[in-house]
């Protein structure tokens, strides 16, 4: 058993931390947050330095790192700024599926694009049907390929994406007949509209995408035809670990700020860090954070060893995003009235933490899935 990061991992962590410290200007972040705009220039810089494609193979612009390495980068980014960190972490959302299941020619197009910051990739998975597994967007086989019809919602950076991975029903008995298609976003029949302002994670707008007789060639399918459901599960497993890493970063960043502020802020003749009420909060949330960190690193480590563990990934996702919410909530409280003001740069962590909790799978779903994993499905 070895709980140490490797020297290389510590180097990655330091590099990511230094980059974030140098580039994530808090006032600039506040502006992007207010404008609900993706931070393009920061994203490009992060890509130039190889942060976002680090986990891709070298021949596709990456460094062949593992998911734990990638998690360390995301965590460091979110620790410095919850909004910019989550925005950068989701700029290549969906590329995981190409990395794990794509053909070589698909990898050759998508991965360098994401790694070099030349384009945004996204995954259009959710639909406005309440049950996650019931995908209604359909791909019908024709002589020349497929015709896609349907609608997706909550698509991160949909309007900015050059490519999108679209989960479709490709036979009558979904979810078993489900395939994922890689689409050029400029194809005819695709229309995109924004879903409006968000409570948190405002630098990553979400969009509705409709597909009206979108004709795609047969080779647009990612991986195995009719293998979409399984791919999606694997994809979600990986995304859960990434989400956990974002949560860790937000939690730690909020905690750092609360601790620092509590040492500076004087009331009743002493720094408020000396009051039990504040010490309780900082001790409790630190416990949450460290517990979540252990599960998150463990889940990423198992993943990198080729044995992703559904229980671990769910627990990591749950523990880390919950820790983020708790730590950010209490951090706002430590800051008092100032904390409720945007200029204190802590309320953004709070809103972003809650938005992260709500990303893709919400707590009730996570808990139900974990129970299924532990106990089998309820009869």
């Amino acid at each position, binding site marked *: 058993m070895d709980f140490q990061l490797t020297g290389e991992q510590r180097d990655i962590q330091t590099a990511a931390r230094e980059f974030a410290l140098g580039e994530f200007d808090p006032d600039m972040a506040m502006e992007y947050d207010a404008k609900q705009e993706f931070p393009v220039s920061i994203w490009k810089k992060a890509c130039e330095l190889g942060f976002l494609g680090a986990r891709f193979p070298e021949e596709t612009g990456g460094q062949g790192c593992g998911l734990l390495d990638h998690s360390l980068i995301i965590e460091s980014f979110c620790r410095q700024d919850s909004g910019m960190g989550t925005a950068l972490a989701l700029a290549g959302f969906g590329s995981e599926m190409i990395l794990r299941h794509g053909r070589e020619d698909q990898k050759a197009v998508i991965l360098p694009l994401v790694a070099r910051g030349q384009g945004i990739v996204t995954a259009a998975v959710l639909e406005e049907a309440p049950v996650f597994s019931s995908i209604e967007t359909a791909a019908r086989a024709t002589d020349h390929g497929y015709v896609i019809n349907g609608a997706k919602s909550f698509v991160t950076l949909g309007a900015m994406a050059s490519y999108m991975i679209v989960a479709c029903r490709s036979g009558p008995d979904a979810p078993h007949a489900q395939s994922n298609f890689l689409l050029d976003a400029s194809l005819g029949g695709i229309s995109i509209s924004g879903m409006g302002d968000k409570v948190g994670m405002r630098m990553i707008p979400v969009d509705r995408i409709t597909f009206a007789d979108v004709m795609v060639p047969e080779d647009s399918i990612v991986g195995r035809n009719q293998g979409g459901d399984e791919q999606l599960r694997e994809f979600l497993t990986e995304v859960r670990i990434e989400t956990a890493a974002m949560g860790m970063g937000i939690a730690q960043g909020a905690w750092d700020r609360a601790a620092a502020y509590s040492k500076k802020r004087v009331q009743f003749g002493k720094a408020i860090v000396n009051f039990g009420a504040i010490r309780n909060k900082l001790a409790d949330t630190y416990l949450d954070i460290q517990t979540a960190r252990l599960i998150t690193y463990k889940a990423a480590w198992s993943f990198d060893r080729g044995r992703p563990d559904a229980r671990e990934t769910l627990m990591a996702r749950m523990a880390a995003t919950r820790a983020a919410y708790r730590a950010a909530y209490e951090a706002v409280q430590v800051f008092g*009235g100032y904390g409720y003001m945007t200029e204190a740069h802590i309320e953004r962590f709070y809103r972003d933490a809650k938005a992260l909790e709500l990303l893709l799978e919400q707590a009730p779903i996570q808990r139900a899935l974990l129970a299924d994993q532990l106990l089998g499905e309820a009869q």
Partner: protein
Amino acid sequence: MGGQGYLCPWVEKRYGGAGLGLEYSFIITEEMAYAGVHGLMAGLHSDIVAPYIHAFGTDVQKARWLPGCVSGDSILAVAMTEPDAGSDLSSIRTTAVRQADTYIINGEKIYISNAMLADLVVVACKTQQGSGSPHKDISLICVEEGSPGFSRGRNLEKTGWHSQDTGELIFRDCKVPAANLLGEEGKGFYYMMEKLQQERLVSAIMSQASAEAVLKMTLEFLSQQKGFRKARNEHSMSQTTIVEMATDVEIGRTFLNSLIRDHLGGGEVIKKVSMAKWWTAEMANRVASLCLDLYRDYGYLEDYKIGRFFRDVRAHPIYAGTNEIMKRIIAKVLGI
């Protein structure tokens, strides 16, 4: 609201009010919270600031100011907090020096609700230094819009309460008539300690009503979601969460109603009101957060008003004395 009698309905008829009981005001505050209209701050105006004038003002001051409070022509604010004096109210630095029949006020206030709009601000100032007890140095002085040397600073951006202004007030050799002193010199701290009880009660009413509103809108949302019942497994687990929230809300309502009764009866409520203030604020945030989860991805979209409630209620554990201060007060009452 003033035109229709919704402001300060408890003020006597001779000052333009309806002469009703405070409970009418609380009902209005509650309805405003149900509607999610935090921004108008009618509760602050009617039940937090106006009572200072009513309780400590002279007949002349009351005749001069209360009719405007009732009609809405005069918007009220109370200025206690300063950059270095939040929870520790006795450490304020704003000074008011008496010169003949005027006070010269110098200092800055921050996070003041209604700062930009207020026509009349009750300002906590130090009228003397070093009386031995910092509590005895503080007085309350009414500063009116247009007083020389009185200006507004920034209107601050914040998490929620976007339809309401929270800002800075600046006093630079601000001159107000000595007749604007509320009550006696040196008693301001005690006045605030007295009136903060009702402020905290108003805060608890807003928290409780917000939690009730959030739970109600969530149940409505879920009943409209056609597939909610389809995911049976998850549903039975969520049911437990909803029931727990409904129980919290019910217990909060019972406690709050008993507190309102005690307060209206004129009883001593310091312990109970401090408990209600922190507990309902925390409960409203817990309910808002758990209900957002039940909205699934829609929870983070501003198109759904629950998101606004979620952002708004985050202020509740902070203003009117933080939850930590409430617990400090309760500890004192308990003698621990």
